[in-house]
């Protein structure tokens, strides 16, 4: 289960500033607050495994407004890659499909239940095992490159969303306003002090 996290920036809401952003930026960011596009890449089965995987990778709350897996599905459907792939990995979409099938099969082997149906601690133990494999191949893939693929896509989705910005105190877009108060412990009126740090 997702832990209850202290709110270090209570009341801070990056997206509340959207009227101060330029139209192109506001359009790109506010779209993420609306409904995601329909799933086009993942099969329903892959989707269920991916949801469970990302819930664990990012410890997502059940009511988290960031639809991480829908954002990943969009990127894969549109082939919006990072512009490279490792020689020992297939292209990103295929790598996601193969690695999700790997999780599912690990779960059936160890617990006789599909990955998505497992309780979170068991899911964590399967994911954690992949991370610790080192150079040993995992379902024909190098585990470190699989880990890199999962975390890159998952973190890009979560920390590209205003919900992710709010809990780290990041105000998001800054055009055309820019910043006037630079320096250590200097804040703009729209920034909030960290109440849970140090």
């Amino acid at each position: 289960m997702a832990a209850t996290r202290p709110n270090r920036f209570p009341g801070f809401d990056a997206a509340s500033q959207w009227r101060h952003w330029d139209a192109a930026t506001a359009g790109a960011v506010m779209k993420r607050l609306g409904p995601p596009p329909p799933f086009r890449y993942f099969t329903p089965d892959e989707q269920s495994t991916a949801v469970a995987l990302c819930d664990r990778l990012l410890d997502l709350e059940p009511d988290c407004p960031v639809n991480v897996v829908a954002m990943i599905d969009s990127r894969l459907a549109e082939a919006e890659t990072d512009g490279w792939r490792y020689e020992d990995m297939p292209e990103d979409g295929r790598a996601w499909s193969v690695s999700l099938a790997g999780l599912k099969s690990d779960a059936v082997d160890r617990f006789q239940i599909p990955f998505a149906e497992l309780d979170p601690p068991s899911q964590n133990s399967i994911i954690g095992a992949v991370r610790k494999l080192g150079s040993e191949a995992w379902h024909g893939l190098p585990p470190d490159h699989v880990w890199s693929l999962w975390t890159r896509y998952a973190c890009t989705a979560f920390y590209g969303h205003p919900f992710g910005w709010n809990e780290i105190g990041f105000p998001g877009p800054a055009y055309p306003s820019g910043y006037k108060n630079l320096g250590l412990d200097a804040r703009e009126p729209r920034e909030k002090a960290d109440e849970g740090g140090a």
Partner: protein
Amino acid sequence: MSGVRDRNASAWLLPNDGTRTNHRLRRDMRRFEDSDEVDAVVVGCGAGGSVMLQRLARRGWHVVGFDAGPFWDPDTDWVSDEAGSHHLYWTEPRVISGSDPVPMGSNNSGRGVGGSMVHFAGYAPRFHPSDFRTLSQDGVGADWPIRYEALRPYYTEIEQELPVAGDFWPWGDPHPYPHRPHRVSGNGEVFLRGAEKMGITAKVGPVAIPNGRFGNRPHCIYRGFCLQGCKVNAKASPLITHVPDALAHGAEIRADCMVTRVEVDEHTGLATGVHYIKDGRRRFQRARIVIVAGYSIETPRLLLNSASKRFPEGLCNDFDQVGRYLMVQGAPQTAGRFDEEVRMYKAPPPEVMSEDFYETDPGKPYRRGFAIQTVSPLPITWAEHVAAQGHWGADLRERMSDYVHWACLGALCEFLPSAENRVTLSRETDRNGLPVADFSYSQTDNDKMLMKAARGVMEEILHAAGAADVITIGRYAHLVGGARMAADERHGVVDSDCRTFAVRNLYIADGSVLPTQGSANPALTIMAVAARAADRLTG
């Protein structure tokens, strides 16, 4: 600074009404026919290609620049947002291999008019005189067929045209900058504080962002999204520093056109033009001279894809030099945690730099050195730092929530050129059916020692500044080499004037011609090399 406007009026050709693009200049742009034999075509409109276009157009040449990506309008095409900036990078498929594969995309590869300078941080240091003769001086790397002095006047010119702001520069060939240094944010303060405590010299700059208005370019607003394309028109990129003047002098830029092959006449041995794809149609532009400026991956790929009966192993590849000696810099980043709020996302990431460790130190087991600079990862990139420490799940979220307390430094380590670090053609093809590039990279022992030493210095600086915890990730930055400049055809692809040894009307004017890379960000040097090549070409 009136001299700049007389020779490059780009900044004055931009609008001053709060919009960022001179649409009339683009609409009224001169347009050539495919059947016109233009004086020159330039393949790629980045740092090297745009300078070439502007210089040649100024001298009255009929020139056409091709770019595989769009002709950007910062107002509509770019956003002040990390995840929404994917389209700025070259994200066509590429394969990376070797014992230390180098990620591409946002890290080092541009797309569209302006090239990767659209999303470069903005650091614009010169190379040191020693970079031009590392082999004779330090027994490693390669000697250039030209010395630093040959580039010096071009460095000065380009520094005025971008223009560059910074403190008087005490390293390499000491020199001033045309603009005063910028104010610094929390991240820069931390670096200056730590360096002072350790007796390390650190200076503000040099960044290609004018301090104040420049022509119709407004003052920087310290927004911090330099790596996502400058919507302000404050940070330099060729899109605003050289392209407007090129258009005003009759150059044509053909965006969204992928050049697939350079044609060479079997009988004369001369290049006759370029094949390209526009809107899915295959076309051919005739030209008297062909200048390739696609950068270190796409330039070798284009030459290799231009194989013919005369050049069965790829154009200009008689001596197996094309694609080789490709370099990246080792660019570890070390972050430190401070009780104060640093908020490193504010202000341009390029703020403060030290070149104290740039030159070979005879007391060390390694040759050559590294530079240290402020870098300021935004949240998605910062998550990579945190995830790289092995954190995930609740642990990752908790550590991420500490973002405002972290400062970050980055090193540029001079990795040495090696013949085995190279571009070859993959079996995989792109949507046009062209083989994609496979970039293989492996580090040498010297490279590894430099990475470790740089990390140690960055950790010391951050601790001296008051950081309790520090974390480091290994990464790479920049690209140069792949079609290097050399004294003869057995050691490189082009001569000191950027003319290919094999085809006398074929030139390469981009970062791929650099034989060494120093510990400097390469943009300024790429532009200076192109400006010099243009002078040599036009006499």
